[in-house]
C-alpha cells in the first residue's frame, strides 16, 4: 500500500537502515524500560518466558516462511539462515516482554490482530529492499503469529496469573525445543563456518536420526510432564515446582531434560 508513494516502489537506503536499527533498538529500549518499571517479579519472569519462547519459534516459523516463498530478506548483514538475527531478537522482544508488559490484561489475540491490521497490512509489502514480500505474505504473517507471537503472549499471561500449568509447560517445552535444537545448533554451525546445507540428508541418515531422537525427546518431555503433574511447577527454576518429584524417570535420572538435550 505504502509502496505506491515511494520512488521505484522501494524505500531509500537510509530509511531502510533506520528501520533496521529501529526494529532492534526500539524493542530493546522498550523491554529495558518496561522491565525496570515493572514492580511485580512474577510478571518479569513471565516476560522472560515469552522472550525465550519467541526466540526459537520465530526462527523456525521464519524458516518455514522462507521455504514457502512467503517472503525473503534482502542484504547480508547479520543473516542467520536467511533471516537477520537482530530482527529475530527484536521480534522476540517486541512480541514478548514489550507487548506483555505494556498491555498485560489485553487478550493476546486482539493485541496480535490489531498489529497485523494496523502495521503489517499497510507496511509489509512495501518494505523492499529490506523485505521482499511474496504474493502469499499474509498467510506467512498469520502463520508466524499463530506459531510464535500469540502463544508467547499467552505463555506470559498465564505465567503471570499462575494458571493453566499444563499449557504453560507444553509451551515452554515447545519453545525450548526449537531454541535448543534449531536456533542454537544453527548459530553454532554458523560460528564454525558451516551451514545446514553441508549436512548430508540421505534418507537413511534422516531415519536413523529420527530413531535415535524420538526416545530422547520422549524422555525429556516426560521429565517436563512429571514436573507439571506431580511437582506443580515448570522445569525452569524461575517458576519452580512446589513439591519434590521423585517418581517416574526421576527415580533413575536426576535431570532427564538436560541429559536428553546433551545426548541429542
Amino acid at each position, binding site marked *: 500500500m505504502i509502496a505506491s508513494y515511494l520512488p521505484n516502489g522501494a524505500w531509500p537506503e537510509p530509511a531502510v537502515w533506520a528501520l533496521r536499527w529501529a526494529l532492534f533498538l526500539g524493542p*530493546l529500549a522498550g523491554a529495558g524500560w518496561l522491565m525496570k518499571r515493572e514492580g511485580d517479579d512474577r510478571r518479569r519472569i513471565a516476560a522472560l518466558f515469552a522472550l525465550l519462547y519467541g526466540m526459537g519459534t520465530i526462527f523456525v516459523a521464519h524458516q518455514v516462511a522462507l521455504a514457502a516463498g512467503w517472503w525473503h530478506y534482502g*542484504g547480508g*548483514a*547479520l543473516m542467520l539462515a536467511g533471516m537477520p538475527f537482530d530482527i529475530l531478537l527484536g521480534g522476540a522482544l517486541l512480541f514478548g516482554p514489550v507487548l506483555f508488559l505494556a498491555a498485560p490484561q489485553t487478550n493476546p489475540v486482539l493485541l496480535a490482530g490489531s498489529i497485523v491490521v494496523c502495521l503489517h497490512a499497510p507496511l509489509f509489502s512495501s518494505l523492499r529492499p529490506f523485505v521482499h514480500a511474496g504474493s502469499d505474505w499474509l498467510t506467512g504473517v498469520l502463520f508466524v503469529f499463530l506459531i510464535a507471537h500469540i502463544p508467547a503472549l499467552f505463555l506470559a499471561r498465564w505465567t503471570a496469573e499462575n494458571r493453566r500449568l499444563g499449557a504453560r509447560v507444553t509451551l515452554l517445552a515447545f519453545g525450548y525445543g526449537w531454541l535448543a535444537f534449531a536456533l542454537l545448533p544453527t*548459530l553454532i554451525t554458523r560460528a*564454525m563456518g558451516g551451514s545446514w546445507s553441508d549436512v548430508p540428508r540421505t534418507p537413511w541418515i534422516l531415519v536413523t536420526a529420527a530413531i535415535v531422537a524420538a526416545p530422547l525427546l520422549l524422555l525429556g518431555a516426560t521429565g517436563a510432564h512429571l514436573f507439571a503433574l506431580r511437582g506443580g511447577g515448570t522445569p525452569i527454576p524461575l517458576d519452580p515446582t512446589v513439591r519434590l518429584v521423585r517418581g517416574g524417570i526421576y527415580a533413575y535420572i536426576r535431570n532427564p531434560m538436560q541429559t536428553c538435550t546433551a545426548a541429542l
Partner: protein
Amino acid sequence: MSGFRPQQWVVRAIFGTLAALGLLRVAVALHALQMGEETALLTLPLGVIFPVVLVAALLRMPPTRTREGLLMRLATAAHLTLIVAVPSLALPLALGLPVVFLLVELFETRIPPTWRDRVVRAVLA
C-alpha cells in the same frame, strides 16, 4: 549497602575501553559506508550498542552477596567488551559466554590463594 562491588577504576576502565571501541566501530562503519558497504553500519546495534547496554546494566546492579558473584559480573563485562573489540569473532565469543563462568570457577578454586587475593583486592572494593 553491604556486599561486594567493583573498584571505581575497574568500572572506569571498562567504560573507557567500551567508549573507545564504540567510537572506533562507528568510524569504521562510516568509512565502510563511504565505500558503499553498509554491513558494518547495520551490525552496530547488535554488535556494539547491545553489549554496551548489557555492560551498563551489569555494572549498575546492586552489590553482590558473594565475591564470586561480582567476579562473574566483571568477567562477563570483560567478555562483552571483547565481543565489541573483535567483531569477526563476535558470534563464537557470544556462544562461548559460559566459558567465562568456568574460568571464574577455576580462578576461585585452582589459583594459589596469594595470587588470587592480590587480584581480588585490586578489583573489588
